[in-house]
């Protein structure tokens, strides 16, 4: 293991007078035994030195309401959807297409005169007769129509639940269309019932991008420091913010997978010297496959938070081992921090010591701890929605993860070094030198190594658990998604959406961090929560204290 992690010192003994173990027990109390056994593995007090095993990426229990999405959502919604010049066709009944129509805020700037296909939600809108007699003809016709209307460079097809069940062969339809139309057409078997969450969709999408796009265009690119950003989806313009920052440093991004990115950039991005990974969960497959096939090394970065951003920039500069670049990076960091630090300090002074909890995504629950930490807010509890054990415990745990049925049925591509195009981007010696200096290649240390001891790590948190967390530990702010935002706020706690950013952002890079500080300052400064109970109710309560709320409910 690399020594890169800065293991936090200190232990969360108790919050609001309640120890993490006591809170965990509250949460687990009264569950049916089978559920209890399962959840007990998913609620874990942390140990940053030796991360405990967590029961991540296990099936959601029927009837327990989850924030998780499906395989289709992970594939079409998250990974491929942001590519604005691929025309996306959802093969299925109307819902899936509609629901994935611009509901994630991955932004794109489209060159003048081009059409932004993200505005379009094309679906075969299957009807009963397609279910009964098969939908392949309908799909083929839809592809033809799409081509006739838009003449796109590429068309991508997504299978929804019924498609798999009735046995439509979308891949053969795509192959035929590709031949017929002379453009790239490919399909994804990302039926919603596959896998335990959207995570399965990420994997399927990675496979498809790798098979159908990566490496198609070998045009050389002679920029000096060429990298790809993997696992950055340009929510609220994050990718643009990172892009701008790297540009200042003289680093060129060939492609951001997948945010604000075009088809042409993707098919040429194997020309890069380095892949840096933001969201490990959704894209690690791609990083690995590109390294194997083309010899592009990868490592993990984090541009969320001022210190993390500085650290990530320095790591990239170190990788290229170029004095000029390293100096430039230091200049940029110094200039950015000169603006940021006073704002950070002012806001930190107001909120130092407040507590956050973050339950979201497959990397944001980790990344945003740094950003909250910048302004003195400690994350006392966190968990992912769809991550795997390695995202919690670090990639060194990978060999120990049992392959279950849900993972097994997702194709693992058999990737070999490309005969002509494999080229190590860094000499083995240089690489080893970096590793010896503690540089972590192809690694992710996981969230747990950066959280305090006894902080409560909760995978796929349920409403029930959230309720206990809020009532007992009283976090000052929670980072989550739209589906629990309103529950959290109904309970009087401000909730920052870390999927859609509440239609704000960007929060990446230094400029984004300043945005975020101000946003959190606003949320923690509003008086609205203090108004919730009307004064006459307060008066009455003061006059005659009521029975606790729960008893009332029971009555």
């Amino acid at each position, binding site marked *: 293991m690399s020594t890169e992690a800065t293991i936090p010192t200190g232990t969360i003994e108790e919050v609001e007078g309640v120890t993490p173990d006591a809170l965990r027990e509250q949460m687990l109390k009264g569950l049916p035994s089978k559920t209890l056994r399962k959840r007990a593995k998913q609620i874990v007090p942390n140990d940053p030195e030796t991360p405990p095993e967590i029961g991540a990426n296990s099936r959601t*229990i*029927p009837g*327990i309401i989850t924030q998780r999405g499906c395989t289709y959502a992970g594939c079409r919604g998250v990974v491929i959807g942001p590519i604005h010049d691929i025309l996306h066709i959802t093969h299925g009944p109307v*819902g*899936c297409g509609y629901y994935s129509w611009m509901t994630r805020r991955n932004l794109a700037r489209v060159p003048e005169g081009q059409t932004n296909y993200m*505005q379009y939600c094309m679906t075969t809108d299957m009807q009963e007769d397609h279910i009964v007699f098969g939908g392949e003809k309908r799909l083929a016709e839809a592809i033809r129509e799409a081509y006739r*209307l838009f003449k796109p460079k590429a068309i991508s097809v997504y299978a929804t639940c019924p498609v798999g069940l009735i046995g439509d062969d979308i891949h053969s339809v795509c192959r035929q269309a590709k031949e017929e139309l002379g453009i790239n057409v490919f399909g994804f078997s990302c039926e919603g*019932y596959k896998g335990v969450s959207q995570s399965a969709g990420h994997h399927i999408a990675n496979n498809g991008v790798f098979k159908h796009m990566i490496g198609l265009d070998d045009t050389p690119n002679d920029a000096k420091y060429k990298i790809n950003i993997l696992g950055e989806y340009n929510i609220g313009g994050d990718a643009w913010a990172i892009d701008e920052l790297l540009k200042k440093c003289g680093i060129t991004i060939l492609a951001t997978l997948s945010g604000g990115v075009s088809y042409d950039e993707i098919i040429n991005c194997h020309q890069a010297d380095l892949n840096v990974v933001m969201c490990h969960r959704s894209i690690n497959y791609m990083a690995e496959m590109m390294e194997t096939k083309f010899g592009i090394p990868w490592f993990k970065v984090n541009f969320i938070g001022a210190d993390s951003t500085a650290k990530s920039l320095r790591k990239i500069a170190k990788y290229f081992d170029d004095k000029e670049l390293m100096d430039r990076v230091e200049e940029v960091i110094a200039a950015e921090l000169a603006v940021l630090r006073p704002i950070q300090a002012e806001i930190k002074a107001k909120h130092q010591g407040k507590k956050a909890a973050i339950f979201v995504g497959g990397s944001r629950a980790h990344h945003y701890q740094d950003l909250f930490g910048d302004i003195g807010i400690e994350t006392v509890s966190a968990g992912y929605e769809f991550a795997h054990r390695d995202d919690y415990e670090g990639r060194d745990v990978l060999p120990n993860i049992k392959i279950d049925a849900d993972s097994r049925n997702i194709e693992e591509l058999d990737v070999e070094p490309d005969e002509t195009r494999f080229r190590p981007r860094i000499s083995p010696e240089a690489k080893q030198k970096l590793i010896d200096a503690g540089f972590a290649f192809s690694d992710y240390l996981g969230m747990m190594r950066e959280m305090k001891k006894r902080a409560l790590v909760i995978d796929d948190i349920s409403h029930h658990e959230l309720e206990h967390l809020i009532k007992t530990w009283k976090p000052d702010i929670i980072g989550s998604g739209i*589906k629990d935002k309103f529950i959290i706020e*109904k309970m009087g706690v401000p909730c920052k959406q870390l999927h859609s950013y509440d239609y704000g952002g960007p929060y990446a890079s230094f400029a984004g961090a300043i945005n975020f500080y101000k946003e959190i300052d606003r949320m923690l400064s509003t008086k609205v929560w203090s108004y919730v109970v009307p004064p006459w109710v307060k008066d009455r309560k003061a006059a005659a204290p009521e029975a606790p709320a729960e008893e009332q409910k029971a009555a």
Partner: protein
Amino acid sequence: MIEEFSLAEEPQSRDLSHCTAATRNACKLCTPLGACLVFRGIQGAIPFLHGSQGCSTYIRRYLISHFREPMDIAASNFNEDSAVFGGAKNLHAGLKNVSRQYKPAMIGVATTCLSETIGEDMAALLLDCRRAIPDLPPVVHVSTASYRGSHIDGFHDAVTALIDQLVLPPDPHGGVNLLPGMLSTADLRHLRELVEAFGLPVTMLPDYSDTLDGPTWMDYEALPEGGTSVEAIRRMSGARATLEFGDTLRFTRRTAATNLAERFGVVRENLGTPIGLRATEAMIQALERISGRPCPTAITAERGRLLDSMVDAHKVVFGKRAVVYGEADLVIGLTSFLCEIGVEPVLCASGGKSEHFPTALRVAVPELPSTCVVRDNMDFVDIDAVGKELKPDILIGNSKGYGMARALDIPLVRAGFPIHDRLGGQRVLHVGYRGAQQFYDQIVNTFLARKQEKSTVGYSYL
């Protein structure tokens, strides 16, 4: 703040209006969404999807973006095994967990395309569950494969299922049943108020006016307060009459109201959704008839003020051209109102397949110019392509028309579902004189504001 994807206008040459296989930017949502909305309107009920978790997540996401309220939908969380071998185990576990965790007064089970495609025998499965789970509350099941119909069908089917599966033999009482259709929370509150103003106790089904437009909690609530009680639904057989809103329902559909009429003899009063004068008038007259009481002065006064404002501002709206889109019955109501105020609807579009839509619209609004295009099964690319040829001055419908409004540089007055780019989308009042007043003011003031803003010199009086 960084901005989103560009809304580049379509190149003119592209003919976007002749697609048959692909739906582009649908103007409809899927059936289980409608059913979930209905189940959320039952007191203490929890909606439950028999299918994969993704459907629940997507539907919740969409309903939340409109209502800005918690919206829990449980699911049986199919995985690949269940897809192959059937979801009995998951259904059982799911119902058991939901019962235990929420102690719901009812569980509303809607099937998804997944369970529908594999042909789950829901009646049998639910019977098994009832035997096996001792504390299972009433479970109502509705079949909602999204390859059959759209969200509005899921909505009506869920209402029918509730009545079909819950109502007990009649025990006559003086109340009325109200089946409002898919309306806003403000609509539901106002309808209740109107019916009660005639001294009539009312069972409104569904009633999500509180469950999806509630206050911030003073104490924790596992299930939001409000909704139609199961008990009240059971007693709907004893009502004086059923008021059922929806012009399209009048035609051939077997509706919840016909169910009550056929099984229990409850008089069915099918009315247009009370949007605008004519349809509100019809409702008031029905209430006078049923209650035997004259229309209360407060309502007449609201009507009077509305008329007065219509006199004041008809010059602003008269002759303007409108495109209206959304659920068929909503479009009919809005179209009727627009004709009353002198706005000319040039395109009335519904996204769902609704064979009765054109007929129902022409019957409800006989003065609608024959040149007006009335079409069901349209997507937004159709609406855009057809609509812009008709040179409208205003769009009326849900948030999904924003791109078109922007491209045409005309205002969009938001109505229907979903409205996710304004605050209070769930509280838009469409019905009654008060709703008409709000729409009227909004339409007039939208035109006035544009006139004022676009003027190179600035109007001080208007």
